[in-house]
């Protein structure tokens, strides 16, 4: 058992991978595969948030910024692929028949540039932003407000540049995904598989980061930032790495969201979307490995089932769930597992060692 224990998360990821990549495509209808793909995208962003917030203590309230960078990079590419080599995206002609293609659209014709942009843009933006913030020792509520404001700013910027970005209506009606016809069910399954596989890769990456020395250092920085300086490390650099990784994951999530959902609008990257991303993480358990991903998927599922059948009630249910989780399970639903485990231990030990009966009591009192 003790030999197995460090590998349990890895086994968990394996089971999760089989469920997503083998079982789900075999048993689910196209409608639910598409939905599951969407949840996977939110889960990818959530895994990054779990690292930055749960392990690193940075309340990243504006991950919509990086989600949006990846999503719009992908959406611009798919829009151009759909409109063909020499013509403008349809929405631009609608607003202004004599319009010419804005310069920043041009490079997104290239497959390679788009993929590079999805990876490099968030890394560059998060590095500059994170460096400026963390070196200046901006943290806590100030950091959260600032990152939230950035998500709002990006959403407003896109809304207000309707001729260049499609504004509030967003970008939609994509027909091709890197040469594959998106209407084809087989291709839809393929896009879902890519998203699911990326989620597994992100889980593996965070699993390794958590068990590495960096992971220990990140927790140390979260709990006693100034003390870390006396270990000879600049806490700003440690936080920066976690922040950039989280940004990259959010961008990948956004990029996969576009071909799966078929539309991206500023509403998907603004303040409330960013808060929903973090809500899933809080629900699932921010410091655990699977909590953020499963929490995000649960919120996504709730939104598309309850949210569409009973939209006025859903938001109240969501609110109530949060109040209950924050009050009774501040570390999320995943902490239930640990509590259940210790309860099992207690019931197993009690009959064999009556002398130790006072120990659980003491434990109770401390709680």
């Amino acid at each position, binding site marked *: 058992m003790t030999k197995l224990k460090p590998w349990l998360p890895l086994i968990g990821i394996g089971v999760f991978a089989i469920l997503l990549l083998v079982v789900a495509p075999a048993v689910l209808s196209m409608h639910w595969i598409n939905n599951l793909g969407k949840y996977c995208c939110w889960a990818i962003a959530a895994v990054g948030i779990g690292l930055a917030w749960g392990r690193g203590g940075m309340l990243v309230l504006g991950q919509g910024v990086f989600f949006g960078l990846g999503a719009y990079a992908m959406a611009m590419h798919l829009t151009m692929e759909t409109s063909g080599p020499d013509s403008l995206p349809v929405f631009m002609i609608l607003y202004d028949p004599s319009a010419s293609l804005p310069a920043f659209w041009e490079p997104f014709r290239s497959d390679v540039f788009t993929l590079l942009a999805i990876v490099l843009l968030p890394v560059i933006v998060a590095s500059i932003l994170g460096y400026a913030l963390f070196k200046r020792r901006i943290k806590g509520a100030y950091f959260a407000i600032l990152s939230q404001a950035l998500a709002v700013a990006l959403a407003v910027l896109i809304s207000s540049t309707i001729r260049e970005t499609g504004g509030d209506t967003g970008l939609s009606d994509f027909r091709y995904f890197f040469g594959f016809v998106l209407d084809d069910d087989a291709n839809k399954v393929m896009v879902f598989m890519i998203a699911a596989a990326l989620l597994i890769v992100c889980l593996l990456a965070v699993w*390794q*980061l958590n*068990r*590495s*020395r*960096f992971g*220990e*250092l990140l*927790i*140390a920085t979260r*709990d*006693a930032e100034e*003390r870390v*300086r*006396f*270990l*000879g*490390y*600049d806490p700003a650099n440690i936080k920066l790495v976690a922040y950039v990784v989280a940004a990259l994951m959010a961008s990948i999530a956004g990029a996969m969201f576009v071909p799966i959902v078929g539309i991206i609008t500023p509403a998907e990257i603004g303040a409330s979307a960013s808060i929903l991303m973090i809500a899933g993480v809080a629900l699932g358990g921010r410091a655990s490995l699977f909590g953020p991903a499963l929490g995000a998927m649960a919120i996504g599922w709730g939104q598309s089932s309850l949210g569409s059948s009973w939209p006025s009630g859903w938001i109240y249910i969501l609110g109530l769930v949060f109040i209950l989780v924050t009050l009774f399970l501040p570390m999320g639903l995943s902490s239930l597992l640990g509590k259940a485990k210790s309860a099992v231990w207690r019931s197993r030990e009690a009959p064999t060692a009556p002398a130790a009966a006072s120990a659980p009591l003491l434990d109770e009192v401390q709680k």
Partner: protein
Amino acid sequence: MTVAEGSLVVTDLRVEFDGFVAVGGVSFDAHPGEVRFLIGPNGAGKTTCIDAITGLSKGSGSVTLGDQELLGKSTQKIVRLGVGRTFQTASVFEQLSVLQNLDIAAGLHRSSLSLLRARRGVDPAIEVALEETGLSDVRETPAGILSHGQKQWLEIGMMLVQEPRALLLDEPVAGMSQDERTATGELLQRIAQRRIVLVVEHDMDFMRRYASRVTVLHQGKVLSEGAVAQVQADPKVQEVYLGTGGAATTAAMLVVADPTIEATDAVPQGKGD
């Protein structure tokens, strides 16, 4: 006085907070091989001195370790130059185990890429530190549930694995039992054989038993300096302790032996000032 190779030399150190002079031109030095004590009444500027040396507070003047100037450098850089410190309240990482705490502290000399790997096995330096601080049996225990004394030893251990040239300890025995004090004092003497050890302390009995040399600070200035007996005999020191703290503290300083009286009587009164 000739400065030995690799000594910590503080020259005319000044620290001001918004016009209030906390440390006003303090000079002293500490050499490898001695347990150097910095004592003085509350508010004398002892901890502020250490803060300035480790880059936590901004100071002017000069602090050198060997031929390296420390003032004006960032804390993490000063640590990498070979200065370690502990805090009045032990500040170990409570969620991590003893071993993880030591391992994190020992990471100083590792490459940044190796941070991405998980820990395999235990560094020999960490084994030595566990042995030295007597924490071998609790290596897997989360640091948060250690006793107060064990936390302080863990802090000292975390400093040891960094292999610093100078160790600065801020009231290491505050709140410790008599046995723990003895163990700590002996540990410090062992450490000091090859390193600079500078201790800020309130506890006069502890100072008397383990100090090689003492500097007395008062209102941000050096009042007296020398061996324990020399300092105790200094009329200026006696006057300061009589004038500000009352007779109890001075009595505690002057009584040479009998730690039992010390622990029950003099120290609590001395702390009351």
